[in-house]
Every structure is written in C-alpha cells, then in structure tokens.
C-alpha cells in the first residue's frame, strides 16, 4: 500500500510540472467546448427542452465532456505499450508489486492531477462564462463522485487491456487506436447518448463505454436517480470486474510470450 501511495504521488507531481502545457490544454478544451455547445444550441431550434435536457444542461454537458477527457484519458494512452517496446517492462515486472497495480497506482496520481488541473478548472471557467447546471443535493454530489471514480476504473482497466496487445505484436499502435476510437464514439462524448435513435443507444449499452462519460453526465445533471442510479453503479462495478479479469488472463498469457532483447 505504501508503494502504491508513493507511485501515485510521483505520477501526480509529474503532471504538475508541465504548467504551460496544462494552460495550453485548458485553452484547447475550452475552445472545443464552446464549439460543441454552439452545435448543441443550434440543434435545440429554440426548444427549451429535448429528451429531458434543457439548453443549460446541454452547455453543462459540453463542459463535463471536455473536463473529463484528461481525467479519464479514454482516447489515448500508450504507456504500458511503450514500456513493452522500450524493454522497461522487464524491470517493472521485477518490482515487488502486481503489474496491474503498478500501473493503477501511477494512473491514480495522473488522474487526480488531471481532475484538479483540467477538470475542476474547466468547470470553474464554465461557471464563470455560462449559466450551468449543478447537482442539487449532497446525495447527488456523492453519487456523482462515486460514478466518476468508477468511470475512471472502467477507463483504466480498458486501457490496460488494450495496451496488452503489445505483448503479441511488435506494433500494436493501430489496434490500440482502433479500440480507443470505439470508446470515443460509444461513450456519449460526441453527443449525449439520449439524443441518438434508441437502437443505437441499445448497441452502445452492450459495451462498457456508456458507463464512462455518459453515466457521469447523466448523474451530474440529475437525469437519473433512484433505481436507475443503482443500476448504473452496479453495471459499472460489473464491467470493472470483467475487464480486470480479462486483463489478468491476457497478462498471464502475454508474459509467457514476452521476450526481452538484451543490450
């Protein structure tokens, strides 16, 4: 546990050092958020509410999606893959720590730093420039944070699993990119999932991806509560367990194939 904590702390500090990069990233996120918001507002055609969402909700949605990109890191993460290709994996495997936990620890620090620097800041900027929705009660805030953390765990175990492809092929970048595009498309990042035709939404819910961004958005905006909320949380936990199990199986098979070239 001590080791876990230290690794997280290091990863957290590493994120804090890139200050100019953080500012540049924030500007980009905010700009893209404004573009997305403009498109959504145009879609409303002056209606005050569509599929249970108001215009204020829609604007908040763009802030939430932009604010969770860095935190969830759902669309690009090649660190395990890179460590396999550089050979760093050999020394990482010797560490007195489960390989999954070794990366989980670092991602904890990274995610927490991103939450503060690129999540909270975006929402504050949104609150200053726009009229936004906020959770209405303490229990809703708690539910939001719980769903947010579970969303991150889904994202991490999915990213870890995808990166393991590096154990099988010397250039797994294409496979990983394809996998990340799927999660980008089906997570409700482009448009709120409830704006899509029902058959498409059903298709998305066969994957873990709606339980990342879309779940976070819906709980924050108060679009789900009671039984539906419990259902989301249970589904998130189930997906996390399944993805971790798949990662463990893949990792065991992968390590057996791994050859490190000396030099």
């Amino acid at each position, binding site marked *: 546990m001590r080791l876990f904590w230290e690794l997280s702390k290091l990863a957290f500090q590493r994120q804090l050092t890139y200050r100019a990069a953080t500012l540049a*990233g924030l500007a*980009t996120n905010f700009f893209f958020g*404004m*573009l997305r918001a*403009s*498109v959504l507002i145009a879609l409303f055609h002056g209606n005050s509410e569509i599929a249970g969402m108001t215009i204020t909700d829609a604007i908040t949605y763009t802030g939430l999606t932009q604010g969770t990109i860095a935190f969830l890191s759902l669309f690009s993460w090649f660190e395990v893959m890179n460590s396999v290709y550089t050979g760093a994996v050999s020394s990482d495997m010797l560490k007195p720590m489960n390989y999954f936990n070794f990366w989980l620890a670092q991602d904890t620090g990274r995610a927490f730093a991103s939450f503060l620097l690129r999540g909270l800041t975006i929402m504050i900027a949104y609150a200053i420039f726009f009229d936004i929705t906020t959770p209405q009660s303490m229990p809703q805030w708690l539910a939001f944070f719980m769903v947010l953390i579970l969303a991150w765990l889904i994202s991490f175990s999915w990213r870890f699993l995808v990166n393991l492809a590096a154990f099988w092929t010397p250039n*797994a970048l294409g496979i990983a990119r394809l996998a990340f595009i799927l999660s980008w498309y089906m997570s409700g990042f482009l448009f709120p999932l409830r704006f*899509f035709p029902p058959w498409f939404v059903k298709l998305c819910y066969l994957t873990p991806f709606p339980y990342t961004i879309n779940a976070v958005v819906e709980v924050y905006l108060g679009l789900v509560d009671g039984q539906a909320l419990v259902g989301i949380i249970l589904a998130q936990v189930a997906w996390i367990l399944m993805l971790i199990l798949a990662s463990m199986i893949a990792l065991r098979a992968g390590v057996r194939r791994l050859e490190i070239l000396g030099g």
Partner: protein
Amino acid sequence: MANMWYSIDIYRRLISVNIRGQLQYRVSFLFDFLATALITVLAFGSVALILQRFNNIGGWTVFEIAFLFGMAETAFGTMDMIFSGFDPPYFGQRVRIGSFDQMLLRPVNLIAQIFGSQFILRRLGRIIQGSIILLIALTQLDIQWTAIKITMIPIVFVSLVIFFGGLFIIGATLSFWTIESLEVVNLFTYGGTEMIQYPMSIYPDIIRNFFTFILPAIFLLYYPALYILDKPDPLGMPAIAPFLAPFVAMAVFTLAIVIWNYGLRFYQSTGS
C-alpha cells in the same frame, strides 16, 4: 534549376523510404488505416444519426453538412499527410532531441528534408472516407451547376490544404521558442477543421469574428459553400466573399513562410 531537381529527387527518395517503412508491419498498418478512416465515418455518422431527430443544424440539412464535412476532412487529411513533417508536436520533438540540428548541417535543402521526414500514409483513410462523404453530398444535393461552381470545387480544396499547411508551418516555428505550449496550435488546426464542418452562423460572435477578421477561415469553406449550394448569407458579407478562398490561403501561407524564415534566423539549438 539543377539544385531544385536534386531537392525534389531527395524528397521523392525520403518519402519512398518512409512509405516502405510504414508498410513493413502490414497488420498494424491495416488497423491504423481503418482507425483513421473510422474516425471520419463515425464522426459524420453520429451527426447523421442525430439529425434524424433534429432535422437540421442552423438551417443546414444532413447532406449540406456532409458537403462541409467531406470537403474539410478530405482537405485536412491531404494536408496532414503531405505536411506531416511540419506537424507541430512531431516537429517540436525533433527540435527537442536535436535531430533538427542534423538536418541543418546536411548539404541538402532543408524544406525538402522536413517534408521528407514524415509522410503519414494512414491519413489516406481519412482522405478516402472524406471524399466518399463529399461525393455522397454532391450526388444527393440538387446543385445548380455552373462553370464557376465547378471550378470552385478544386480551388476550395487546394486553398484549404494550403491554408492549414501554413498553420502547421507557423506551429512548427513556434517550437523554436516553446515546446510545452504547442498544444495551443491544435486550437487553430484541429479546432479550425472541426469548426468549419458546421455552418459558421451557429457560433457566438467572438469565435466567428476571430475566424473572420483575424484568421479568416470563414472564407475558405463556409462562403464558397453558401454560393455553391445557393444558400442566402445570414451574415450580410459583400458579394465577393465566396471567392476569397485562394487569396486568404496564399496570404496565410506567405505569412507562414515569413515567420518560418524569421524563426530560423534566430534559432538556437537546445544543445543537448
């Protein structure tokens, strides 16, 4: 003259080595190609699905949006393939690790070397998908073709390539001074392409004014599209607005070359 042919020959050789390298891992290339193609198809696919419910965006139907989207994607993909060597994050990395210094020392044209340093073949995926979407738009829309409109299509395409190519060069020049804040360039390149895929009338004044008077991207695709699709101009620009694309592109590109030369004169190696 002989020197120029030599540079072109060098460029050709560098590119062919580059492409052969990318085709070595066939499976990975195929996945990469599919991934890049999928981004375009899925992004447009979701707009099309959304429009089943909402009908139009700012008065533009799904095929009119497809025209903007297909043109922007095809042109940006083409630019991104040819100008990959200037891609700010990639070029910035070269400056940082010092391999740009090696280029400066070689007795070969610098520009040919940078253009030849990277040629991302998988962008073909984006280009092909973009052109398919554009073709669908052109066949499904009932466009009243005239000689002017037909000539405008290739001109708009080339202007977009040159415009975004210029932005890549400006971004690459920035890396002579800063590596860390390079992501800001994405705002104008990736942000710019995403923005022009929708009618400009939907954006708030601050964004639209910026992209009209400071970085005039509005003339590259939105105004030509209004003219080609016979849509009224909600912003009330002079009647010449649809024909400004090539001039704006040349102006940005010239500016990029001036900035590049200025940056190069003051370039100091990181020394590491």
